[in-house]
Each structure stands twice: as C-alpha cells, then as structure tokens.
C-alpha cells in the first residue's frame, strides 16, 4: 500500500472516524488525537503488512483503543476529566437522532449558532474535512497561530458550555432558539465552506 492510498483513506474516513469517536467519548480533543494516532500507526504498518480488509473499521477500532488506553492512564492519575470521559465511553448511546450518522451530529455541533459563523466553518473543515490548521488559516487569510487559537477557543466553548452533539429536531416542539430552521443557513455555509 502506497502513501497516496493511505492519504485517500485519510480524506475519505477522517471525518467519520472523528465523529464516531466524539460520540463514543464526548470529547473532541480526545477524538482528534486518537484518530491522528491511528493514522500514524497505519502509515507505519500498512506499507509492509498491506491494508486491513476494512481500513475505515481498522482506523476507528485502533483510535478507540488508543483513546481508552490514554484515558485509563490519565484516570489512574486521578484526572477527573479522564474518568468522566471513560464513564461516558462505557455506556453506548442508545439514542438515535432523526438521521443515524455521527458526522451529521458533529456538523450541527460545529455549526451551532452560539459559535461565530467564521468559526463554524473553520471547525467543520478541521474536524470533518480533516484539513490542517495551516490549510484553514491559508483559506481564511489569517496567520496560523490566529486560526489555531480560534479553533482551541471554539472547542473549549463546546466542552465548557456543553454545546450538544445532536441533530436538532428530535426535541419536543416549543420556542427552540436553536431549532433546525435557524441553524440551516449556518449549516449550508459550513458545508459549502464559505466564510461567514
């Protein structure tokens, strides 16, 4: 397997893997890091062993195991955050939204109207498109540290303010300020990769 083949798997599967891991652990940083580790392992292994029967499945399983290993190590050091994420990973979510796709849930999180439009697009490109911070910074015509800071701040807000991982619309009717109708313009912009 050539590096270009692994690159293709990365482009096709990075977003889905991150989305699955976010659902499993409820934490974007853990998910991103674990998926990146899994691809690093793939680059080291696949050229000699050949690709596994299901590259996407291998990436997700490897990332999941890496995340659990990391969380166990941190939990044993009495890291409350790690303990919480492990607990979260323990109970498989039974709840299914209107559309059973983890990527769509994560798109709605990235494009939550509580995040500034430009940040929504950048975050979607990063988490679901698998673009590097440098590439996104280039597209937005801002220095890389500026974009890195924006992404860190946005992920911090999602975590601390508890922006949900959920496709809106599964909630009872009522004056929901963040219903799907209100969110669709943001979502469309995010999908088209326009600047806000």
């Amino acid at each position: 397997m050539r590096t270009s083949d692994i690159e293709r798997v990365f482009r096709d599967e990075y977003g889905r893997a991150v989305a699955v891991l976010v659902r499993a652990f409820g934490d974007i940083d853990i998910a991103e890091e674990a998926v990146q580790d899994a691809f690093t392992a793939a680059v080291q292994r696949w050229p000699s062993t050949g690709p596994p029967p299901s590259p996407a499945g291998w990436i997700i399983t490897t990332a999941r195991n890496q995340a659990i290993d990391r969380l166990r190590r941190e939990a044993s050091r009495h890291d409350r955050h790690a303990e919480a994420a492990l607990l979260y990973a323990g109970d498989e979510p039974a709840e299914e939204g209107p559309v059973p796709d983890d990527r769509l849930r994560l798109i709605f999180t990235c494009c939550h109207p509580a995040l500034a439009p430009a940040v929504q697009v950048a975050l979607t490109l990063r988490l679901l498109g698998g673009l590097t911070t440098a590439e996104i910074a280039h597209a937005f015509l801002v220095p890389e540290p500026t974009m890195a800071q924006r992404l860190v701040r946005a992920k911090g807000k999602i975590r601390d303010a508890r922006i949900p991982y959920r496709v809106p619309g599964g909630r009872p009717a009522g004056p929901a300020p963040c219903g799907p109708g209100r969110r669709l313009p943001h979502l469309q912009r995010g999908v088209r990769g326009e600047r806000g």
Partner: protein
Amino acid sequence: MTQYLLSVYQPDGDPPPPEVLDQVMSELNVLNGEMKAAGAWVFAAGLHPASTATVVRHRDGEVVLTDGPFTEGKEHIGGFTIITAPDLDSALEWAGKMSRATTLPVEVRPLQHGVED
C-alpha cells in the same frame, strides 16, 4: 447537568415607567415559577443600578476604592439568574424566555463548578 449564569444587560438611566416595569416584573415572576417547576431554577436576584457599585483593588498592600462599576458603558448587569440545564441548547431556551420577559439582552455563561442547590 451544568449550571449557567444568565445575566440581564440593562441600559443605565431611569427605569422604565411603572406600567412597563410592572409588566416585566410579572412576566419574570411567571418565568421564575416555570423554571422552578422544571427544576431548572437555582438562584436569582435583581441588582440596584450600576451607579451604586464600588470597585475594590488591593494594590501594594493597600486597598483602593473606586466609585462606580468596573466597566465603562451604557449598559450594565441589572440582574441575574443561575439555572441548571442538561446542555447549552436548553440554557439558551431559558435565556430566550428571559430576554422576551425583560425585553433586554441576556448573556449565558457556564459555571465552572455548580453552586449547591
């Protein structure tokens, strides 16, 4: 569950005329009742005008007082409510109702560690 601080930003100056204020107060009472019934309400208070504020700074072993609020501006926090909610969407929904009741903007911020209720 996370607790959120809902701050109401109020323009400085005279309060609105009684007929407007009474309406706001009664709608706020209804909303507080709704929050309590839903188990979301933790604490709420209205504040005296920002002109009653004093800023205290400890500097070089001395305490220095400044008359007035910390930030310059035409609006200041006029009151706040602490709620508990499962996620930001739920907190924003309460904030929307609060903004409608008060006719004022409401800032939503998550608390690091909730206060005991």
